[in-house]
């Protein structure tokens, strides 16, 4: 049998010690009438056949398209060192570092991770990861409700629409009021947001750059939020923070993001991880694990899980969240990735994404029939419209070897014929030129 090492003699010896006759007696505490004779699934496969089976299944997936598709999940480089280190089983076959002395490796990586998230965001404290960007945003909204003891969340329509749906699910079961404020020309509707801020608002959630790629400065909105003692929660694209104004400089109270872009594969959407950082004053309201540095009994520095009185295993129904397992290994990957990038690397990478996207935007604007809908101040994504239906346009480019972007018409009818196009540092001029000429061909 795979992976059980028991010899027949050992089984006998063990049963004898327990005082049992046969293996089936091990289940004597399960009422007989509930026991089944077996499950109706195929017998196990040998390793070689299993590999062949799944290799054939993997071959049914299409991964040979050139990606101009982003929307929160990006085709960035993954350096070999990330796979090599995260593939060490000392990292991936351990678990939650409850026993500090036996887990200094994971604990120190997470401390370094938290430090890096604080550097990206400019904020004081970070937790040690959430499930993903969407759940991190939802938990940030709940944090705002807890901190302000108010019951209303404003959601900017520029947030990733799949995230909005997740946030709505989390909030609706708590009877927390929320309102989505639609964007105008793919940009935050400033006046509308400002008008809605008052003493009833717990927090305003927004994204920068927003889902459509538009970059904005929210300083004035945040000032008004603070006048009314409401919180500003920003979801951001970590790579863009190599270039764009950081959340703390805008005055944001809570920063959250998805970490897929930092050294992780697309994985069909998961596993990724979520990050949350905030001001020190709000640390007791953070969900999830936090790692701290302290001293051991001999005065040696040691890393530990800390502030655990927020968590479910101590506080049970009064915990800040029910999260237990987080997305540790993916956060470890990203810590390694950010170490490789370094201070200049992150800025360079952001600049590459921005510059290449700007080039593509310019090239596309020269094609008859293509219109760029958010012309100014975009980072690495922007919206185009074409005379074709979104479906038709995307299908035709798919046939030419491109995933040309995200079909916005499938997100909302009002985005008829519109596509969200994304570029990363991986796209070469050659690929972009071929993409542009293919678009010329299909229109």
């Amino acid at each position, binding site marked *: 049998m795979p992976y059980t090492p028991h010899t027949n003699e050992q089984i006998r010896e063990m049963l004898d010690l327990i005082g049992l006759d046969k293996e089936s007696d091990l289940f004597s505490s399960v009422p007989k009438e509930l026991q089944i004779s077996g499950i109706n699934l195929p017998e196990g496969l040998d390793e070689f056949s299993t590999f062949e089976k799944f290799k054939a299944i993997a071959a049914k997936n299409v991964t040979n398209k050139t990606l101009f598709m982003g929307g929160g999940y990006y085709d960035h480089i993954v350096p070999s060192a990330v796979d090599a280190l995260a593939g060490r089983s000392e990292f991936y076959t351990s678990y939650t570092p409850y026993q500090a002395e036996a887990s200094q490796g994971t604990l120190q990586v997470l401390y370094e991770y938290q430090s890096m998230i604080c550097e990206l965001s400019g904020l004081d404290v970070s937790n040690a990861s959430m499930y993903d960007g969407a759940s991190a945003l939802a938990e940030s909204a709940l944090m705002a409700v807890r901190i302000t003891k108010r019951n209303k969340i404003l959601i900017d329509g520029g947030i990733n629409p799949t995230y909005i749906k997740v946030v709505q699910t989390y909030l609706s079961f708590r009877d927390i009021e929320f309102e989505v404020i639609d964007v105008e020309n793919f940009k935050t509707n400033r006046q509308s947001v400002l008008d809605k801020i008052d003493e009833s608002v717990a927090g305003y959630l927004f994204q920068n750059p927003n889902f459509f790629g538009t970059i904005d400065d929210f300083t004035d909105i945040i000032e008004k939020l603070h006048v009314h003692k409401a919180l500003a929660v920003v979801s951001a694209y970590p790579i863009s923070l190599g270039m764009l104004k950081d959340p703390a400089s805008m005055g944001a109270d809570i920063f959250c993001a998805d970490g897929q872009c930092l050294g992780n594969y697309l994985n069909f959407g998961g596993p990724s991880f979520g990050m949350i950082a905030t001001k020190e004053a709000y640390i007791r309201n953070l969900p999830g694990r936090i790692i701290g540095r302290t001293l051991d009994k001999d005065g040696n520095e040691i890393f530990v899980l800390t502030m655990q009185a927020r968590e479910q295993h101590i506080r049970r129904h009064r915990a800040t969240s029910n999260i237990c397992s987080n997305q540790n290994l*993916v956060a470890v990957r990203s810590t390694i990735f950010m170490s490789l990038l370094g201070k200049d690397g992150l800025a360079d990478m952001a600049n590459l994404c921005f510059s290449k996207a700007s080039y593509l935007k310019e090239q596309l604007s020269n094609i008859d029939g293509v219109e760029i809908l958010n012309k100014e101040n975009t980072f690495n994504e922007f919206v185009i419209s074409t005379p074709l239906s979104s479906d038709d346009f995307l299908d035709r480019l798919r046939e030419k070897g491109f995933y040309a972007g995200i079909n916005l018409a499938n997100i909302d009818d009002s985005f008829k014929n519109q596509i969200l196009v994304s570029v990363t540092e991986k796209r070469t001029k050659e690929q972009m030129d071929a993409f542009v000429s293919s678009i010329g061909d299909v229109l």
Partner: protein
Amino acid sequence: MSVNMKIKTIFDKSQNGRKGITLPPLDVSVDTKINSSLLREEKARLPEVSEFDVIRHFTNLSNKNMSIDKNFYPLGSCTMKYNPKIVERIANLDGFLNLHPHVVTNNFSEDVQGSLETIDLLEKNLCEITGMSAFTTTPQAGAHGEMLGIMMIDKYHKSKGEKRKYIIVPDSSHGTNPATAAMVGYEVITIKSDENGAIDFETFKKKMNRDVAAVMLTVPNTLGMYNKRIKELCDVAHEYDALMYYDGANMNAIMGVVRPGDIGFDVIHINVHKTFATPHGGGGPGSGPVGVNDKLKEFLPDLGIKKENGKYEFTSGGFNSIGKISPFFGNYGISLRAITYMTVLGSNGMKNASTKAVLNANYLRVRLKDYFDVPYAGMCMHECVLSAKTLAKKGVSAMDIAKYLLDFGLHSPTVYFPLIVKEAIMIEPTETENKETIDYFCDTMINAVKLADENPEEFANYPKTLGVCRPDDTRAIKELDVKFKY
């Protein structure tokens, strides 16, 4: 206290201008500018190190972890079994790694037929193993699955025009159960355990009423015991139309032996990082698929799959769906690992795994029962809970035992959980450990008991071999240091 040994973080190793990566070239020229008010004034101070610095730093850190591949890791409730290498190899195939989730938004289901097939396979396997009628793989961990389960239960009652108030949990329950109830807006009723460690049946009956939305039970429970009256509990709850939630963290005890769906449970989550051997990753990512019976099918979350004319399509959940809890298919890469593991085991291998898990736990229990307090006597399932109550009178706590073991290459069991057992030591050996290892563990535990008799003070010095010993947790909170300071 003065600092004796200081730790070098990756930030301490930083040198101005050093680089760890070469990026693709900037092969276009553009003069697009962004308003300077939108730009960052100072760069984020990520460490400046070389690739080799990074390799050496993190390799050395990895050496400071205990892990399943290096150590026996009998962490109760966590099912730290061997993670087969074939699973990693399959999960790292290009065809699985590099799929963009927005193919869902674009409706390009034909490009991901392979992955949709693996999701279908996993859902079907889980239905057969648990006796539920449908599964979703969108929850990203056990607790996420609990949240989804309670949301669906909430919708179920609302669809009948009811808003119920309470969730019942036993006092032996895992912290995520009551925390989940609160996340979804419920109040928690905690019911004490009886002298056998089971939820007290009479109290349970008294507390049941039509304001109770659901009962959350772990089966076998966190004491490693199977509740003989489990079916009666389901029947009582159902009389009040309260639904039964099965915390499947302990599925490793019962595969191929008994099915939650057959007993009458309405919803279940599975921790694939436990029962189905997906790596724990130092704390995650896991995956927490949720199964339901016919009562709850209509409430399943947004994003599922269906097969029509031999082709898989996406489905977005029906009119009564609770909506999205994950943007796409949750931790797909982890779910994929689970189905590859199940394929290797097959029906025979799964039943064998549970049998050997229970065999190992009972063997260990019998070997240790005369040396420790046994809070609840009798056969256990896949894990056994002992207590260091008597040792504690000599000044040796469960934590002392936990720390002692570390010096002998053994990871500690779970300690101080379940909360109802004083000085709890919760040991889950799993089926992949051989008898020699379990004997070595038992011998070491027995040695600890001897040392407690001879020299109880000595425990304060354990572990002696790991370079650090006994963190000051109070200082960690009082002198909060949660990030590198320049």
